[in-house]
């Protein structure tokens, strides 16, 4: 293969005029770019911009309708990912595809053509450590994958691709599951790894600072089209966002100062188990006041989900108490909590927050069926429900043909707007917002965040759970970093320093206890 002769700056991959249509949409419309050896070339775009389709085309999972891919100047035709792998293209998926009970070596060798019936783990191990030395990775190859941090797992995925001979690495949202310190570490090693001969193509949705720190060049996609090819040195966060969204984006949210009222939610020493029966929430105590946003910052899987579900009445508390307006609701059902003025925006908007086969009106009814105003003698007043839905659709700018559309036909952002509209229209006293902007594009994120601030202005108490530290810092009044089911402190946002919070999210207790 000609790869051996690759020098820094050589064009290794070219994409020319790629178009891919799906029924009703053009996912990729005449896309052009090229990738050079020794370069990190980020592909940036919101959800729905066509990144996933493009990625799948590059990895041979989809075939383009028009246009072509050229590897080392030769036109190629991928029928399956195997063809792509043979030509030195590797893919690191966003969702880890590793076996937790196996060692690092075993995971790396899995699926490798040489892993036939007999494994020579010793030789493989030597080859992999050679690879590690060459690209500057430090991983314990004998460790089981479940013992690794998320960042290390990412490295294993990268090693796996490299071991199969990848020279062009596609990274799908490389830092999405990482805490800030780990993100930093990973980015540094990617830079070192790239060196002279690799080409790295990270696909990134909205983490603009990462694009700016890591990449050499950026290609921005919007609605299936390339809107810009930029040298990263010439780009700023604002210019990238503008290319991505197609209009100017206000990054600073108007902070609303609301006089803090009496406590709405009081939680005492609350603990709970996760689905596997392990202690995932280890005795947290806090309160949320009227007109206050308490932000819970953490990397996913540190007990936030369990906390949200216990508070919403969807999971039994193992111990401790929850008070809503001074009434003990620890043993109340989810329905009783809705009736008492709690509102919950779940993190899983597709399987929990909505019912795909139900119409939008029926989805809105999920939070209103228990309301006597909308039914008489048990018969639903569907005209009223439809009217409410149409009001919410127009007020929240949900893009949908009407209230009869099914929820599954909405995009993520529109679905989240609908859920938000439905929950907020009940004027909850306490709102639990679990990852309210996860996976949303810049425009929808901005919208959701502003709606949360509006609710705060109307004196709701808000518990905001987020993995996005910027979001936590810009919205919350107080910040509680969570690590392995415990709060590492509760800090007023004025005193919260980014680095401190980031360190606490990774499990480091602050030197001086602050409250």
């Amino acid at each position, binding site marked *: 293969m000609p790869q051996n002769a690759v020098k820094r700056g050589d064009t290794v991959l070219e994409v020319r005029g790629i178009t891919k249509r799906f*029924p009703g949409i053009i996912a990729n419309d005449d896309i052009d770019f090229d990738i050079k050896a020794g370069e990190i070339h980020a592909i940036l775009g919101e959800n729905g911009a066509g990144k996933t389709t493009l990625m799948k085309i590059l990895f041979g999972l989809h075939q383009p309708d028009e246009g072509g891919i050229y590897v080392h100047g030769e036109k190629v035709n991928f029928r399956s990912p195997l063809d792509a792998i043979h030509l030195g293209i590797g893919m690191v998926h966003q969702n880890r595809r590793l076996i937790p009970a196996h060692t690092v070596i075993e995971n790396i060798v899995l699926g490798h053509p040489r892993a036939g019936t007999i494994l020579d783990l010793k030789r493989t191990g030597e080859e992999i450590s050679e690879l590690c030395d060459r690209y500057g990775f430090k991983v314990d190859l004998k460790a089981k994958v479940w013992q690794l941090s998320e960042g290390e797992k990412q490295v294993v995925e990268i090693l796996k691709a490299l071991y199969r001979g990848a020279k062009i690495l596609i990274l799908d949202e490389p830092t999405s599951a990482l805490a800030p310190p780990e993100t930093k570490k990973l980015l540094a090693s990617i830079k070192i790894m790239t060196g002279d001969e690799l080409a790295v193509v990270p696909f990134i949705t909205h983490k603009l600072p990462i694009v700016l720190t890591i990449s050499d060049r950026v290609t921005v996609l919007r609605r299936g089209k390339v809107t810009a090819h930029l040298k990263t040195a010439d780009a700023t966060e604002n210019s990238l966002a503008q290319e991505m969204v197609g209009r100017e984006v206000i990054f600073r949210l108007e902070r609303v100062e609301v006089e803090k009222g009496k406590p709405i939610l009081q939680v005492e020493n609350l603990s709970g188990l996760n689905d596997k029966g392990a202690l995932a929430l280890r005795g947290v105590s806090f309160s949320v006041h009227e007109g206050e946003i308490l932000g819970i910052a953490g990397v996913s899987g540190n007990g936030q989900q369990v906390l949200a579900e216990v508070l*919403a*009445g*969807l999971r039994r508390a193992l111990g401790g108490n929850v008070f809503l307006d001074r009434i003990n609701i620890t043993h109340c*059902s*989810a*329905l*009783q*909590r*809705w009736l008492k003025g709690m509102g*919950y925006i*779940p993190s*899983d908007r597709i*399987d*929990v*927050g*909505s*019912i*795909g*086969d*139900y119409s939008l009106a*029926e989805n809105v*009814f*999920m*939070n209103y*069926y*228990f309301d006597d105003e909308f*039914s008489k003698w*048990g*018969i*639903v007043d*569907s005209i009223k429900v439809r009217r409410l839905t149409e009001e919410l659709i127009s007020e929240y700018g949900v893009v949908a043909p009407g209230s009869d559309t099914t929820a599954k*036909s909405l995009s993520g952002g529109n679905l989240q707007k609908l859920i938000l509209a439905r929950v907020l229209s009940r004027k909850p006293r306490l709102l639990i917002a679990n990852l309210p902007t996860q996976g949303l594009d810049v425009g929808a994120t901005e919208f959701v965040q502003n709606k949360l601030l509006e609710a705060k202005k109307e004196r709701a108490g808000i518990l905001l759970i987020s993995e996005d530290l910027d979001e936590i810092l810009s919205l919350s009044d107080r910040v509680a970093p969570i690590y392995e089911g415990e709060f590492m402190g509760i800090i007023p946002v004025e005193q919260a320093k980014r680095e401190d919070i980031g360190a606490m999210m990774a499990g480091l207790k602050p030197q001086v206890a602050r409250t």
Partner: protein
Amino acid sequence: MKLGGYEVKLEKKLKVTGWEAAIISILAILVALALVSLIFLQAGVNPLVGYKAIFSYAFANLFGLPLTINRSVFILLCTCAFIVPMRAGLWNIGMAGQLYAGALGAFAVALAFGAKGSQGMNLAPAIVIPSMMVGAVLGGGLIGAIPGFLKGRLNTNEIVVTMMLNSIAFWLVSYMIKEGGPFMGGGGEGEGYKLPQSIYAPLILGGPFTIPIALGLAGLLHFMFARTKTGYQIKAYGLSPSAARYAGISAYNVPLLVFLIGGIVSGLAGYHYFAALPGVFKITRNYGDLGDLSFYGIICGLISQGNPLAAIPIALLFGGLTNGGRFVQGQLKIGFGIDYALLGVLMITLVAFQFFYRHSIVWHKSRRES
């Protein structure tokens, strides 16, 4: 795919209208009939003659038509008993046991009124008949509620529980009607006792009054699913249990409720067959066959996609084919169960044709690629 000068493609369909569904079902039936004609041919019978005999006996014969209708109503009730849990995403395989329990309930009430005496004894139908129906509802509802309760509280598998209850109820009936059991009839033929003439079910337009009840029930259930809060909650639970829980819909009450309704409707099927059909009025020796027949409720429920109104014509078709098929088999001297063959093929084609609920075939002249 290319066929001659045409390009043929499958496209996903988002919605299917009632008319399209009806046309697709009719096509499926025609295909099934065409396939079974091969069986007729193989048996040396002209399929046209065979079908003519089946359909004319089932739907245009003075003796055959009432039998068809009675059977179909029985199947319709079993279908409704299956559909209600189905809409909650749960499988009721226990219509047999529930209808046995319903029959036992009805005959226990009649027994309490002293009905086991002579055929000519005089009981007040206005009191006894409704009481017997209440007995059937209680019997069916009680045994039906068990899998629902266990599902909600302990998350047991409702399929296993209902199937086990089928067995229990089957042998319970056997105990009650045979060899000295409390419901044993006078003839000593292993049958239940016969109801006195005075409490025979009243006829409406020549058929037992349970026919309009069954049709009304199907309409009522349709209304429940289309318009009521209860129906909304059941459907929500069926479409997405986790979303239903999020909305505060009880994961305990929904399974209990749907199985309770299912059991009640099955119980009425038991009343309909054993206590309301002309010429029966007892728990017959071959009551197990009725249990087998109740399983057609599953197929009808699946074909009607959980719509109780759509279940009416399908139950009628199935009732007619079992009835006509069995008749023709004797008449044309076919040596095997043509009714089962026909129903079996019909089930397969109906289910296979549901593919077209979600896909449509489009074709257009293929263009030269540029």
